């Protein structure tokens, strides 16, 4: 008997107006795995990630998080599942009128999971997890891009998720900061055992951090393999995409 996957995506499709964004996408993500979705801009990978996070509903197929089909459930049930999913947005999506402390504490305060000294302790711990001790009083506008992404990760971690979804975690960052974020993703998985799905078109990031990765092209899954398998793939689309990084493209 095989263990139930943390995420099971089956034949997922998404149409917006008359445009097909995703078509027949299927894959499983095992517990504690770092799974990457790569592909060119506009290939549908962010749409797929938002479907996994319950932010948009697929127009076909099923998405099971811990066995619960989030594509078919009502908003109240979906909210219960969302609390097991942390979402790290491409541009961090921090609440710009709140301090770093209030951003990280937000989910806990809204769902009355902690208050007072317990809340302060959790926020400090989550900020320490992302190496941002002492940043509690700053506002998002006072942070660099890399710091904002780390606060976004701390906010996602605060609600103690089983699954973490990262949308382009290294885009817009310099290589050194990007590498620090890569390390943080792996470190977070190793320490907390969370299942991670990373959307990226940054090939070095995908190859460095992933246990397995899938390539999406024009809304369809065209390859799924380990980083080594993708590097050695004979599939022309995959070869072109993966080796474009080697040639600096």
């Amino acid at each position, binding site marked *: 008997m095989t263990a139930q996957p943390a995420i099971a995506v089956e034949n997922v499709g998404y149409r917006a107006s008359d445009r097909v964004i995703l078509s027949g996408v299927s894959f499983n993500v095992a517990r504690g795995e770092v799974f990457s979705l790569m592909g060119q801009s506009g290939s549908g990978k962010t749409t797929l990630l938002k479907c996994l996070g319950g*932010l948009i509903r697929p127009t076909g197929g099923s998405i099971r998080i811990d066995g619960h089909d989030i594509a078919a459930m009502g*908003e109240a049930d979906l909210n219960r599942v969302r609390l097991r999913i942390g979402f790290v947005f491409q541009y961090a999506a921090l609440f710009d009128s709140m301090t770093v402390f209030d951003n990280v504490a937000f989910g806990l305060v809204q769902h009355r999971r902690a208050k007072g000294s317990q809340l302060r302790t959790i926020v400090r711990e989550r900020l320490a997890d992302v190496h941002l001790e002492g940043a509690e009083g700053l506002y998002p506008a006072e942070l660099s891009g890399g710091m904002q992404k780390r606060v976004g990760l701390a906010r996602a971690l605060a609600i103690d998720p089983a699954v973490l979804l990262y949308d382009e975690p290294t885009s817009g960052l310099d290589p050194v900061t990007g590498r620090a974020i890569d390390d943080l993703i792996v470190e977070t998985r190793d320490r907390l055992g969370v299942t991670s799905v990373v959307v990226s078109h940054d090939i070095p990031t995908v190859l460095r951090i992933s246990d397995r990765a899938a390539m999406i092209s024009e809304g369809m899954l065209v390859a799924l393999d380990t980083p080594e398998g993708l590097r050695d793939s004979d599939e022309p689309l995959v070869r072109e995409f993966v080796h474009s990084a080697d040639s600096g493209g």
Partner: protein
Amino acid sequence: MATEGAAVRRNGRQSNALYDTLIFVGDSWGIALQAIGCILRGKVRLRETVRQMAAIGVDSLPIVVATAVSTGAVLAFYMSGVLVQFGADAFTGGTIALTFLLELGPLLAGVMVAARSGAAIAAEIGTMVVTEQVDALRSMAVSPIAYLVAPRLAACVAMMPLCGFVSDVAGIGGSIVMASLHGVPVEAFLDSMRLMADETDLAKGLIKTLWFGLTIVAVACRQGLRAKRGAAGVGRATTSSVVLCVVLIFVSDFFLAQLLTGASVATQ
């Protein structure tokens, strides 16, 4: 063939406009009803509601006073001249007071709050949408309707009668000053006002402001929540919010006037 093509395109445009209008009405009502549901279930943040009451209501009062005083003074300037000329100056106070209590006071308050606070609501929520802050709320199982719309709706509906009342007082005050400068004694103005207008007229006007408050927040939040494509999208959402709010305030004012005063006029 060319005429047929033009007719098809025209029909297409008309059906698109009708479809868009139905979507807009359904969306706005849906948002308003969900927010009312949150308020009735006590799922509204009290501190944020009080903050919004200050932002939407109290902070709007200076521009409401400024526009109402000016409008009242201009109205008195024209009316007192004509009424004094025909020896009907005894009606000046009552006519102006009725005009303000039933119509201009609530309308000016509605338009000013729509222009100031409605625009601010649409811009703030629109910016949150395009920067994915609203998605971040949803990802943490927080309803944007409960978190963003409900406090603003409760605050606006609660503060609009105050804005309407202040508009009435400021408008009538401005008209008293101007009328006295044109030969209508203050005492005569007030006597006429007491004779022709009463608390029922004040109440009818203030009831209108409740509807205007609901309309402003429903439309502004709807436009903000549907904003897309960056700063330009937020700009479009803000502009369309103000235009739609003002148009809807004027159109609904016509029907509210019929509903609230039409019956009493017909029986007189």
